[in-house]
């Protein structure tokens, strides 16, 4: 049960990571990138088309993570404490904090992308999209490290 949910959580996170990275680069990257380069094509997506997907994937990922967290607390965390993986636990604490803050930002992010663009809303779009991208990347990397910590030999 926990393993199935964790794999699902990871798969949704991969999709979310792709969507938010595409959108963040499409929003922020300089417009003089060569259109035929990989970078040029990567950012040449219509950013607004990712908004609903990002919101839905974030919510699903958060929900799955919140359920898996129950198993983590009982089965995994005591082992990490016993083996003195304090840094990993600190990074995981930050992950849960960042993800929670991202949850609160999600409605504003959605509204920004739904509103007609002007100077102020463009800045808001960039700020909130970068913030969510940072949160998603942090959550993904830390989750990956915690999942694989047994193989790191720390």
């Amino acid at each position: 049960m926990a393993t199935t949910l964790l794999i699902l959580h990871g798969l949704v996170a991969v999709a979310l990571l792709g969507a938010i990275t595409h959108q963040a680069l499409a929003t922020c990257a300089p417009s003089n990138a060569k259109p035929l380069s990989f970078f040029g094509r990567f950012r040449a997506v219509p950013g607004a088309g990712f908004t609903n997907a990002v919101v839905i994937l974030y919510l699903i990922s958060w929900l799955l993570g919140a359920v898996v967290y129950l198993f983590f607390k009982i089965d995994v965390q005591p082992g990490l404490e016993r083996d003195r993986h304090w840094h990993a636990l600190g990074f995981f604490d930050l992950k849960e904090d960042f993800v929670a803050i991202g949850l609160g930002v999600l409605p504003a992010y959605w509204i920004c992308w739904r509103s007609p663009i002007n100077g102020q809303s463009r800045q808001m779009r960039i700020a909130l999209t970068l913030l969510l991208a940072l949160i998603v990347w942090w959550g993904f990397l830390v989750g990956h490290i915690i999942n694989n910590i047994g193989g790191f030999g720390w």
Partner: protein
Amino acid sequence: MVMPVPAFHRFVFAFGAAFALFYAIARARGLALFTVYPSQGIVLFGMHRSRDVADPVLDFLAPEMYWYGWIASAAAGAVAVGVIAALLPARLCRFWAWCGWAVPVAAMIACVYLTIPWFRL
């Protein structure tokens, strides 16, 4: 051209800012709306520590979780602030929009500060 901003927009921006602020406060002060004991499948209203009622060395038998309670506390406070913001004049929308990303960034920095003890162990 200045477009009228619906009250819902003000609610949403204020909600995002207040949620982050209240989450950081709840995290710092331990203000969880409820406490979850996953190994027992129990949810208790308010903040409870196993070691307050049992020997600290037995704490691992009933690990408590506050994260869900912190989120609930932050959401409850943020809804109240959002409603107030929606009732305030529309000219404050620029302020709420600015808060909508600046306060979450500040709250994340505060959370980094609160996590430092883990890295001193």
